């Protein structure tokens, strides 16, 4: 709430937390008020079924927004969904939201898109709020200075019924990034390096606040990319304090406050910063000047390296467990130790996802691809994060750049980031991907994923192998 008692300097996270505590329990857990809830077709059916079975209602329908994104096809959208299970799942979201009076953005609606892309686009995501979704990449919305985190279906049900969750306060981790990003280096490269620095569980139990001169200069969309992958280091929440860049992005969005409400909101939002001298439990300093474009070589998002480097040698590992982990990853990826990343040939390219499916991402990929062709050995798809991103890209002629280069131009959805629809790799296929997870099987059974930025994926498509985008700009 606006009146935060501030005798001691507080972190942004602590302010957001304190302003949403409904009550505290004896064991240190709190009942936290949830302002906004994004609902999608995969994590919600069991939640709605639970409400129905108990005869419960949704407490605040206007605080929820639903959209199907995971299971939806990215082509032939004028026809019924071909996969009967996906068709049923998407229809169930429409039926459940109708029954419980929630707004559902239909597949045919111009605003349809990935939950984490449309939330910001519509102004549903705002500074100072708590926002949850049955999806781990909900950390994305923290880019607005919102306390946003992913939850399971049971917690979705709790939010629908009570607008609250029982939670324990996280510790504070400050990732401070200073310096200038070099040419061809983006927020995706930054977050891959941050995750590699922290490790997959390095931020478990923490809320990350990203700060520093580099972060201040990042666009809103780049900040979304940064916060999006916080979960890959174990943090459910990633935050950037809101500033003029945030407010300029948000102004006049359909669901953003207007007129006097905007003025009042803005006054409150300006208080959402970590106070001078606020204590963090842990601080990590990153030098952005030192950065080359990054790419993953393994099966966990922390297994990345500069694109100019090679895969690691397991025998250099500092422990047996670390050695086994590297061996397992290289084995799955079909790579030998000490292989230069730029020698790794790819079969497919995926540009899209809640990490990198926004207009700036598509522009940066198109800038590399303009007037060029992808290698004949490579195929790939470009999947805009939302209908709005798609229309904007088409207005700028980016679709033509992608198609002329030899890539397919699709409709909005999660697509090959989660491979629940028919956008799926064949076993053994290797993909340069702008998504967020290179887990075993993530892009299809036996598929091999190399995470990188949109510009790097575009350069790799042209080269037919993992490429240093700096050679193409």
């Amino acid at each position, binding site marked *: 709430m606006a009146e935060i008692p501030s005798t001691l300097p507080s972190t942004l996270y602590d302010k957001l937390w304190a302003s949403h505590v409904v009550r505290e329990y004896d064991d240190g857990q709190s009942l936290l008020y949830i302002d906004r809830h994004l609902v999608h077709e995969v994590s919600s059916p069991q939640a709605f079924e639970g409400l129905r079975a108990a005869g419960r209602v949704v407490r605040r329908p206007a605080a929820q927004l639903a959209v199907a994104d995971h299971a939806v096809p990215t082509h032939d959208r004028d026809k019924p969904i071909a996969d009967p299970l996906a068709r049923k799942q998407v229809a169930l979201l429409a039926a459940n939201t109708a029954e419980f009076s929630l707004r559902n953005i239909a597949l045919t609606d111009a605003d349809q898109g990935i939950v984490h892309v449309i939330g910001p686009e519509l102004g549903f995501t705002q500074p100072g709020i708590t926002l949850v979704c049955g999806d781990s990449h909900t950390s994305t919305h923290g880019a607005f200075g919102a306390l946003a985190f992913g939850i399971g279906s049971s917690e979705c049900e709790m939010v629908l019924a009570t607008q609250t969750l029982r939670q324990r306060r996280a510790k504070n981790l400050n990732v401070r990034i200073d310096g200038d990003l070099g040419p061809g280096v983006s927020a995706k490269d930054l977050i891959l390096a941050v995750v590699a620095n922290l490790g997959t569980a390095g931020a478990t139990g923490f809320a990350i606040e990203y700060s520093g001169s580099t972060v201040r200069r990042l666009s809103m969309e780049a900040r979304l990319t940064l916060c999006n992958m916080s979960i890959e280091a174990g943090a459910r929440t990633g935050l950037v304090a809101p500033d003029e860049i945030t407010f300029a992005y948000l102004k006049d969005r359909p669901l953003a406050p207007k007129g006097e*409400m905007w003025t009042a909101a803005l006054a409150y939002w300006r208080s959402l910063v970590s106070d001078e001298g606020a204590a963090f439990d842990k601080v990590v300093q990153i030098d952005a000047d030192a950065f080359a474009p990054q790419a993953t070589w393994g099966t966990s998002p922390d297994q990345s390296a500069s694109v100019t480097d090679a895969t690691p040698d397991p025998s250099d590992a500092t422990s047996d467990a670390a050695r086994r982990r590297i061996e397992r990853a290289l084995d799955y990826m079909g790579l030998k130790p000490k292989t230069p990343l730029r020698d790794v040939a790819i079969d497919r390219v995926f540009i899209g996802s809640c990490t990198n499916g926004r207009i700036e991402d598509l522009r940066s990929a198109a800038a590399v691809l303009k007037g060029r062709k992808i290698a004949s050995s490579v195929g790939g798809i470009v999947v805009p994060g939302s209908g709005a991103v798609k229309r904007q890209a088409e207005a700028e002629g980016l679709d033509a750049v992608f198609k002329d280069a030899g890539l397919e131009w699709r409709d909005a959805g999660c697509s090959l980031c989660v491979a629940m629809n028919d956008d799926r790799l064949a076993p053994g296929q290797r993909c340069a991907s702008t998504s967020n997870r290179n887990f075993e099987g993530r892009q299809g059974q036996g598929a091999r994923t190399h995470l990188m930025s949109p510009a790097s994926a575009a350069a790799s498509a042209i080269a037919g192998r993992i490429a240093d985008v700096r050679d193409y700009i």
Partner: protein
Amino acid sequence: MDRFERLIGRAAPMPAADIDTDIIFPARFLLITEKTGLGRYAFYDWRYGADGKPAPDFVLNQPAYRDAKILICGDNFGCGSSREHAPWALRDLGVSCLISTSFGEIFRANCFKNAMLPIVLPPETVAELLRRATQGVELEVDLTTCTLSGADMTPIPFDVDPSRREALLEGWDEIAIALRKDADAIAEFEQRQRLTQPWLYERD
């Protein structure tokens, strides 16, 4: 929710670090809209070969561990996607206690909502339990006393948030409790917030 009080059963070793929820429950099965009967898909791509036959190397396919009720896991078990299908599938498989040095936070929270107990212990203790699990021992997990015990071993105490412990022991319906005990506090919070941040209530 069902209760969780005490459990005696075989512990299976799963020492690999970072076993994510995509491994526990591959995404292509997420089109299922129910939460029961999901055990058949648990660890699917590790459990079955390309020919669809059980992979003999996979620990839960081995006769000694087929009925395991406890998993001794590597670091950061259940990281990644928030899909609650992962704990639903494990529970359907008969596994309701997991022990590791750390868990993915969302996975861990999801376990508590499904009468499952994730226990965090120090690395050397987990390493010792992994050794024991490799020998095919049974363990007893007692949530009433918060101890883990077995033949020839000093009982190991473990910590659980008191309210989460009570929720498991009593089989709480957390939503019913919030609606019954916290309804006034929630309504008061909303009244207060409606005054200080009215822009959040423009569409109610």
